[in-house]
């Protein structure tokens, strides 16, 4: 399979989710990805994007989030870079999935889903930016 790559920059406003979804769909078509896989990439990227949009900046300055996706040899690599304060979403605590309804915490599920739907997640701080690299195996449609 030839290498397919797409790269774009978003503002860290929630309304940019729509642009993000369109870009993922375009990438999905270009790379010939199965429907389920596109669905999962949308989920993973929405979770990361909303986390950065909520926590990634604590000032009034506009921030950007840069996303690159590539697909080679059945592996999708997604890189998300932002210029917000140092923030590693992977450090968020895993929610307790086995407690009862009253005690079930409302937060923490997003990053749990990201980890579930990817093979590998790595965070690093590079200069003034946060960089997250996710790797995902292409899941076939059932």
């Amino acid at each position, binding site marked *: 399979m030839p290498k397919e790559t797409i790269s774009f920059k978003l503002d860290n406003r929630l309304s940019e*989710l729509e642009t993000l979804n369109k870009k993922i769909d375009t990438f999905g078509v270009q790379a010939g990805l199965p429907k389920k896989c596109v669905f999962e990439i949308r989920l993973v990227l929405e979770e990361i994007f909303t986390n950065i949009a909520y926590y990634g900046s604590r000032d009034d300055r506009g921030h950007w989030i840069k996303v690159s996706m590539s697909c080679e040899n059945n592996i999708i690599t997604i890189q998300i870079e932002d210029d917000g304060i140092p923030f590693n979403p992977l450090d968020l605590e895993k929610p307790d999935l086995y407690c009862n*309804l009253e005690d079930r915490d409302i937060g923490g*599920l*997003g990053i749990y*889903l990201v980890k579930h739907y990817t093979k590998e997640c790595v965070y690093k701080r590079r200069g003034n930016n946060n960089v997250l690299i996710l790797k995902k195996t292409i899941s076939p449609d059932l």
Partner: protein
Amino acid sequence: MEITHTEESGILLIAIKGRLDGLTVPSAERSINEILGSGSNRLLFDFSELEYLSSAGLRVVLSAAKEIKRRAGRTVLCAMQGYVKEIFEVSGFGSIIPIKDTVESGIAELQ
């Protein structure tokens, strides 16, 4: 995203159609809170036409179920499809809220 609801024999049925994501959740949350204002304590979520949901959507469902629980009531989720169903399973919702395959079996569970 579109939300409709009906109430019959004390069972409140809320159907969510389309996408429940970071963009649609604020309005979904408002609608659901308004609907729950009826004071009902038996709630059935019909997800047969729910195409997508993220953790933001899961949170809305969880808060509604918690509210019903505070009223000493019960919530059941039903009729979710393929990938959406998987997200509920991965998130462990089945162990806290009953999940049924059809609207009919959901209603039966609440009777």
